[in-house]
Every structure is written in C-alpha cells, then in structure tokens.
C-alpha cells in the first residue's frame, strides 16, 4: 500500500493541526513538523532539521519531527493519525468499488432494457467489463456444441481475429466458474500473438444446462487480475446470460411461429388441390378421408371427371412426410393430370406421367399411385396400380374381398417403365376401399403393425355399411388399435360403392 502524503494529512485534519501547534509550542521555539523533503508543515521554520525524528508509515518515512525535545511521542501521535487516515482511505476505496459495481449493474440493466438485441447487449457487457476492470483489451466469445472452440463475437482494445482454445478457456467452460491466469502465454490463446506473457481473466455466461459464452479480459504481464476482478466480471456475466438466453428462446419461438404460419398456408394450398366435393352420381356412393401426419401431406386423392359416365379415381402416396413429400405430391398430381389430358388408356397415361416425373425427379423421392377409370354406366373399372397398396374390392355376390394388385413400379423410380392395366366390373353392392400405407403400418403399443389382414377383417365386418360408415368404422378401429404416443404416417382413404 502506498503511504499517504503528510501534508495532505495535516491539511485535512484541523484538529490535528491545532494539537500539533499546541504541542510544538511546548517543545521549543524551533520545533517543527516537516514533510519528507524538509518543507515545514507546522511549527517554526527557523530551526534546522539536523536533529530530527522520523515519522514512518508502512516502513516508509513520510516526514520528520524536527529540532525539539520529546520528538518521539509526537512522531507516534502523527503515525497514529496516519494509520487512521489510511484505514479510512482503504474503506473509501472499497466503497468506491462498490459504488462502481452498483452503477455497473444499473447501467447494464438500463442498456438491456433499452436495446434488447444480442449484439448491443454483448457490446455493452464488454464495454462495462473493460472499463471497470481497467483491462487493455477484452473479448466476447460464443460457445456452442457445433463449434470445436469458442468464436469471437466482439472484440475491444485490440485487433485479434482468431482465438485458440487455451487452457484457461477450457477450464472455465468445464468448471462453469470464472478464473484467472496471470502468467498466460499469449500464443496459446491468440493466433496473432507472438510470445508475450499476458494476464487473463475469464468468466462464463451460464444457462441452466450449458455455457453459452465467455468474457475474456486481457492485461499486460505484471498488471495482474485479482479475486475482486472475477467477482466484478461474474456480476456482469450473471446478469447478461439470462437476458441473452431469453432473447434466443424468443427468437426461436418467433421463427417457429413463422414456420407454423407458412405450413398452415401450405396446408391450405394443398387442401385446395384436393377435390372440394364428392362426386354426385346416380347409383354410386363415395366417401373419403385425408389426414396428414403433419401440417402437410405426401398423400393425395383425386376425382377427375374425364367425360360423360367416365370418372377417374386416384389415390397416391409419396415416400417421406412433411414439406418435401407435399411438394412432390403437387408435382406428381400435375404430371398425372397433364398426362390424362392427352392420352386415352390408363396404362399410357401412367407411363407418360412416370416419364415426366422421372425426368425431374427429386433425390430419393417417388410416389405409389393407383389410378382407375370408372365407367359409371356399366360399372367397368380399368386400373393401373403403380406400386400402391392393393385396394380392397368387396364382391357382394361371392361375399369376399379381392385385392387390386400391383401392375407396375411406383412413379419416379425407373423411366420408360411398363405399366399394365387390369379391368373389373363392379356389380351392385360391390365396393372398393382405396387407402394409403398409413393405415396398414400404424403400430400399437407393442410395436405391431395394423397390417393388411386386420384391415381386411375390419372391412369385411363393415361390408353392409354405407361408404361413409365404412371409412368412419375403419378410422375408429385404427384409433383404438394405434398407440397415440407413436408418430403416425399420413392417412388417406377413399371408398366407392355401386348401389
């Protein structure tokens, strides 16, 4: 600790001055108090300072009692005052530090409230940390699981652009506690640094789960950091870490909301591509259900009025779920509609659609599709099954279920693939259930799939119902069976009965 100035001590203590003047007059006409250099602070300046007694503080001479008897007790009295003054000053210094700390927190809170952006918070934190700790430079580093070492988010005081992962930073991240290294080798920390020894202080920005950032302060060698610096730095990081985390979570929430809004719009667009109404044809009964796993779906179905007494029926399922599947679905639907406009037979139409899709195919995506052309006057149904789950045809006369099996590969797999077409005639009472694999692949809590056999049993039991009831009945059976905690696939069903 540096000793205080004797002249300042005497100047600021009128009581001491008065006491000294009284004592000095008793000591003799030439007695005086002099500072370290010999200037008279009290008493007479007529005497010499050849016979003098030192006044010391912390082992340092700060002045003299000169030219008089009983100099020693006077010196002891002044030393006592000096010690008192020193204690007061040390308390004062402590109090000024507390004032600084208090005002720092106040300023930071104010800046956080004024500009709740991560960049301005980081800048404010770094500025305050540097100012209060009298550091020559400071860095704000972000820490994330994706980065192997901390990244510089802000720098003040020097131009370093690359930071290496020094021991101190590692330690602070692992222990989640602030620390100092007053003998740090600069080149271990900064790429541009060459052989300088630095004093470093580092404090973590903590959330409940992890360290999200670090503040690093730099001083030159010898100008060491103390425990007080850590405390001060901690009070900064503890205040801004929650603020930054709240902003991050808020941004995540806003982004999520934006995506959800877009997905909702996408769903509306996609729904508008599906038939708004069921065909109303004398002697026929139609029903359908479309239930996407997410906001949008890779499943689709279609009723296409191709001519008098001629209705196209489509059900399709794109591999994958969500947005990629939905986009592919729109593409596949357009390709099919375009092909149907030009070509006459179902097999030709599907061949053309497949080639269109193959040429512009998305990586790894394809669609299974069942297309049937129903002559509503005769009940003749000509179909192509491009890799789709075989629809169930209930024959009322035989009282049995038949499967409309595959007649070719899914669309988008092999260009110039051959597609066969098959034909059946629906008799009154017959019906067909078209579905996607979301039904047969739904799993129960034991992980067992609903499966095609169970589907056939359920449909057989519903054979006497209307198409609406068949679909509702199947949906109920599925809901009862499936484990709600398991993610499910897109589900589409379509039923057609000849009355």
């Amino acid at each position: 600790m540096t000793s205080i100035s004797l002249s300042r001590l005497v100047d600021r203590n009128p009581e001491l001055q008065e006491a000294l003047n009284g004592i000095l007059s008793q000591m003799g006409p030439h007695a005086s108090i002099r500072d370290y250099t010999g200037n008279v602070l009290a008493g007479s300046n007529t005497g010499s300072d050849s016979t003098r007694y030192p006044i010391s503080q912390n082992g340092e001479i700060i002045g003299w009692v000169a030219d008089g008897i009983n100099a020693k007790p006077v010196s002891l009295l002044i030393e006592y005052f000096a010690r008192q003054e020193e204690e007061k000053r040390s308390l004062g210094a402590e109090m000024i530090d507390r004032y600084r700390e208090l005002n720092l927190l106040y300023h930071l809170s104010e800046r956080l409230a004024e500009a709740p952006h991560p960049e301005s918070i980081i800048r404010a934190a770094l500025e305050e940390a540097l100012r209060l700790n009298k550091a020559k430079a400071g860095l704000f580093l972000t820490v994330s699981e994706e980065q192997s070492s901390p990244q510089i988010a802000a720098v003040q005081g020097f131009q370093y652009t690359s930071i290496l992962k020094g021991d101190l930073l590692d330690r602070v991240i692992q222990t989640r506690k602030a620390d100092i290294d007053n003998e740090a080798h600069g080149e271990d920390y900064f790429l541009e640094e060459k052989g300088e020894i630095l004093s470093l202080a580092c404090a973590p920005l903590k959330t409940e789960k992890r360290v999200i950032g670090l503040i690093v302060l730099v001083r030159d060698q010898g100008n060491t950091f103390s425990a007080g610096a850590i405390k001060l730095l901690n009070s900064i990081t503890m205040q801004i870490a929650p603020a930054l985390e709240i902003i991050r979570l808020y941004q995540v929430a806003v982004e999520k909301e934006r995506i959800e809004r877009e997905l909702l719009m996408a769903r509306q667009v996609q729904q508008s591509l599906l038939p708004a109404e069921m065909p109303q044809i004398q002697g026929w009964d139609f029903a359908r259900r479309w239930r996407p796993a997410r906001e949008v779906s890779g499943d689709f179905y279609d009723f296409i009025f191709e001519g008098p007494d001629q209705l196209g029926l489509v059900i399709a399922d794109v591999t994958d779920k969500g947005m990629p599947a939905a986009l592919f679905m729109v593409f596949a639907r357009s390709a099919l509609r375009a092909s149907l406009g030009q070509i006459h037979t179902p097999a030709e139409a599907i061949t053309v659609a497949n080639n269109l899709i193959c040429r512009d195919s998305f990586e790894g995506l394809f669609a299974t599709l069942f297309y049937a052309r129903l002559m509503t006057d005769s009940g003749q149904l000509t179909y192509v099954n491009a890799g789709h789950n075989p629809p169930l045809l209930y024959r009322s006369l035989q009282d049995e279920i038949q499967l409309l099996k595959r007649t070719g590969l899914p669309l988008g797999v092999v260009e110039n693939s051959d597609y066969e077409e098959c034909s059946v005639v629906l008799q009154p009472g017959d019906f067909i259930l078209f579905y996607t694999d979301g039904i047969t692949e739904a799993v129960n809590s034991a992980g067992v799939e609903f499966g095609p056999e169970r589907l056939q049993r359920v449909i057989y039991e519903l054979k006497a119902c209307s198409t609406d009831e068949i679909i509702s009945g199947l949906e109920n059976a599925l809901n009862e069976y499936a484990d709600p905690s398991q993610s499910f696939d897109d589900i589409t069903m379509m039923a057609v009965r000849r009355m």
Partner: protein
Amino acid sequence: MPSKILIADDEAFIRLLIEQTLEEFENQGVVIFTADNGEDALDIIRKERPELVFMDVMMPKLNGFEVCQVVKRDEDLKNIFMVILTAKGQEVDRLHGEQVRADIFMTKPFDPDELIGIVATVLKRS
C-alpha cells in the same frame, strides 16, 4: 491559477468518498475545498470561485437548492458548474434541481466514473 472544486456535504464520509474519487485531479494540481454546510459552501464559492461544485441537498443552515439558487442568480457566479448530488431521487427533487438551474442532478450512490467524467469535461472547458 489552479482549477478549484468544492465538495459540500454534511456527511464527512461522503466528502471523503468524492474527494478520493477525484484524487487523480488533485494529484494534477486541482485544489479541492470542502464544506459541511450551505453557508460555508456559499462563502467558499464567493471567495474561491471554484469551476465546479458538488452540492448535497440536505445540509444545515442553507440547503443545496438554496445555495444553487443564490449562485445561479448572481451574475458573477452563475457560470460556476453546479452539480446537485443527493440521495433524494424523486422526480419532484429533480424538478426542484431544474428550477434552481442546477447544471446536473445526480443521485447517490453516485457513479464514480461519471463523476470523473464530469470533472474532466468541466475543467477542460474552463
């Protein structure tokens, strides 16, 4: 002529804190005066003409607002930079400070760095 600063506060410890905060100026030759009541403060202001005064509000004899008002109404003294430094932080106090044309109204606990900044600016200007 050395620059002069007056610290007026009836609490000795606060005077000491402000003085200690401004030590670096004192080391450069700035003279710091202190007063523990309003009357003494006004006497020192008239006699020494400091460039800057840190003035507490609640003081015996004359309070800080009264001293400030006298200074700012006096043609010879009105350019002295008056800082009201008080623990009374209500808006009404701040308005009172404005009424008596204090140059700055600061609350305790003061920000040591802000104090240093004010002194540096005022002394540089004068």
